[in-house]
């Protein structure tokens, strides 16, 4: 894509080693910064984005024009206060908003496509650490992430324990469950079943990739981000722009119309191959496995303060997953807080207005 998607791009000076044993040469990290970095570079907060998120945490998305995905949380005098902290958010490698991913051009002059190496959450974090090195930030005031962002925060804490003084993990998990993997596999199969996917080699001049497949993947995933209660409240069994059922396969129900809209909107801003690679990275994620099977060992001797937040209607990464991490941190006597907040929007609750979440985030980062 010719359009400049990021205001800042950092080229990782050395080849980035990957968990697969491969490496990524000349990898680029696109990032945004909000607020001023202090002279001693001690006030940086790294925000890690979720699966389909990007670096535009508190500024308008260049394609959709929508406000930043956590605009309500990040900004001057907001819970993550950019008058006080320098907030950094980078597009993860494997993604498609300016950082190196499958649609980037490989050394042979053609897009990587499926030649892009399979990456892990730890590889993404390795890229972020390289960016911190490049910016001269030795230790973050804090690392913050929801969902896949929380996985990155945990991975940073486990693998680079001196790089963050505070670790805030929201609606996340230390490992992908069978159910998590299953839903992702549905999405991947939908993409790969679309003839336009063409084994991932679809980056032609016409720009038409497997949009139908990607839309279905997004629709299926989107259901997992919501709660039954939230869906019922928002849509019930109400019909869309009609008085009676059509006895056909139009989007009769409002919920169908909503999902189709979510699916097609998503294809405008996201690359299908990136979706394959990032979901794979999440499925491979299991911090305990990286550490020989015991989650507590991942955090042994850490001096960081941790805070975990879950939502009672989140069935994608339910409270039990956060507790699992909390118990591991307890076992290592780490400084940890945990609270389960009540909200009816399911997994997506972390992105929506929630006064208690605001107070927890602000209090934890300022404390």
């Amino acid at each position, binding site marked *: 894509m010719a359009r400049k998607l990021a205001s800042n791009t950092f080229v990782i000076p050395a080849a980035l080693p990957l968990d697969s044993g491969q490496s990524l040469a000349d990898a680029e990290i696109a990032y945004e910064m909000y607020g001023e970095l202090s002279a001693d570079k001690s006030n940086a907060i790294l925000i890690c984005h979720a699966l389909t998120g990007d670096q535009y945490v508190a500024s308008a998305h260049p394609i959709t024009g929508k406000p930043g995905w956590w605009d309500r949380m990040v900004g001057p005098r907001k819970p993550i206060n950019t008058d006080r902290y320098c907030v950094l958010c980078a597009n993860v490698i494997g993604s498609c908003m300016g950082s190196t991913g499958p649609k980037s051009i490989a050394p042979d002059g053609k897009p990587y496509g499926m030649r892009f190496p399979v990456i892990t959450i730890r590889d993404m974090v390795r890229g972020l650490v390289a960016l911190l090195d490049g910016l001269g930030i030795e230790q973050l005031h804090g690392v913050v992430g929801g969902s896949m962002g929380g996985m990155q925060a945990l991975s940073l804490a486990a693998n680079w324990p001196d790089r963050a003084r505070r670790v805030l993990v929201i609606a996340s998990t230390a490992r992908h469950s069978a159910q998590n993997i299953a839903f992702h596999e549905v999405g991947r199969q939908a993409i790969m079943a679309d003839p336009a996917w063409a084994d991932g080699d679809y980056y032609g001049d016409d720009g038409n990739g497997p949009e139908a497949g990607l839309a279905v993947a997004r629709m299926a995933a989107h259901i997992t981000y919501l709660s039954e209660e939230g869906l019922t409240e928002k849509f019930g069994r109400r019909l869309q722009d009609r008085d009676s059922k059509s006895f056909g396969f139009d989007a009769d129900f409002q919920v169908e119309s909503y999902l189709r809209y979510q699916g097609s909107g998503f294809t405008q801003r996201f690359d299908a191959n990136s979706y394959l690679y990032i979901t794979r990275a999440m499925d491979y994620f299991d911090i305990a496995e990286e550490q020989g099977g015991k989650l507590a060992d991942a955090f042994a001797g850490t001096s960081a*303060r941790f*805070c975990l937040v879950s939502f009672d209607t989140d069935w994608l990464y339910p409270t039990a997953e956060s507790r699992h991490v909390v118990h591991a941190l307890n076992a290592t006597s780490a*400084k940890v*807080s*945990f609270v389960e*907040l009540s909200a009816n929007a399911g997994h997506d609750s972390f992105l929506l207005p929630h006064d208690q979440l605001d*107070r*927890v985030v602000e209090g934890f980062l*300022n*404390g």
Partner: protein
Amino acid sequence: MTPPTTFGLRADLAAIAQVVKSRSRVLDVGCGNGDLMEALEMHKMCEARGIEIAPELVEKCVARGLSVVQSNADRDLANYPDKAFDYTILSQTLQTADRPDQMLDEMLRVGKRAIISFPNFAHWRTRTALFFGGRMPVTRALPVSWYETRNIHHVTVEDFLTLAKNKRARIERAWYFADDAPISRLVANWRAEYAMFELSR
């Protein structure tokens, strides 16, 4: 014990704060809004952790910069390693535990010392209310009606001393309070509104 410093705390919490040695590692089980934890961190340079079951109180603690886990102590103390803390503290909460005897075991396993305080059900006001009134007492120390109280295991000073003995818990020190002032062991079982023990094993 004379209370020269209260750290701005409720009297029973101030009594605990005075007992805890400076720079200790402390686990406050049922830490409420975190008043005691904050005082211990500020005035005694302790490293304090808390467990609290009510999410709205946990949120207050986290917003104060305290490390508090929303958790059910009856179940989740099991996740802490042996002797992970210099002190475990159970303030006015023993009588709400599912199994106070098992709670005592866990407090002594996780902490080198346990500080446990509880309202004394054998206080003369409670006895009077039950004896003359024929009803479950509602007193200053036990202010909630029988049907909504979380105090499901009422305990007296003598009961606790027996439990400690049966559990082979050593009572290092004991304090008894009436009207927020210390009173003698000799009259404690009928005059103490609440009691406080420092135990080890």
